[in-house]
């Protein structure tokens, strides 16, 4: 983990450094136990990031991957912030 570049808030600054082990480490910091569903969400988020599509809670609702309720259950206490951090992508800037 020492060689992984992260910003003040703990987000990766270089997505190419992301691995499943890195994700597991960050998840541990956030006190989240990863399940298959968590990984599915991360894949969705990373896919959106690579397509340069903005992330929002409305987008989650429309995603067809996960409902907002489950999203909050999987990543309690700030779902989009935490999931993007674990996914190794930047924190979304949107207010919605």
């Amino acid at each position, binding site marked *: 983990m020492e060689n992984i570049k992260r910003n003040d808030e703990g987000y990766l600054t270089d997505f190419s450094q992301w691995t499943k082990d890195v994700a597991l480490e960050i998840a541990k910091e956030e006190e989240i136990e990863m399940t298959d569903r968590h990984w599915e969400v991360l894949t969705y988020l990373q896919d959106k990031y690579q397509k340069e599509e903005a992330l929002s809670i*409305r987008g989650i609702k429309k995603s067809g991957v996960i409902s907002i309720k489950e999203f*909050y259950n999987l990543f309690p*206490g700030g779902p989009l912030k935490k999931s993007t951090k674990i996914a190794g992508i930047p924190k979304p800037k949107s207010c919605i």
Partner: protein
Amino acid sequence: MGKTKVKKMLFILSKATIDSVYAAFIMANGARMEGIDADIFFTFFGLEAIQKKKLAHLKQPTVGNPAMHMPTLLGGLPGMEALATKMMLKEMEKLDMPPVGEFLEILSDSGCGLYACKLAVDMFHLEEKDLIDDIDGVLTIGDFYNQADVDGTQIVFI
């Protein structure tokens, strides 16, 4: 959660103008997204935002708001309010802001409590069937204050 000391936001929404309703919704949703608890208490005209038949038809008034940069007489002409409303909703759609009904679903799914004010419900002769299904209850103001049950609770009147 970050460094914030805010743990819970209680919003009282007393108006049904688009700017007021979205201010409450965006702040409540923003709170939930940060891991902060949030409730909205709909009172007086704010109740229009949770009435099945009215929530999709909220308006942006063109009279009495200097920031509209429109002479009051002009703003009062027929159709001006509808035009201003249409323009505003179009701009909001560009920013991917959901319409009122969808926003209420998002808030409810996010765990934001949606409550109607008992006094206002009685005053406007509303029944439960007039309100959206996602409503968490009809409360007195005393009940609502009881929701402020943790340190770091803030109450905001809109």
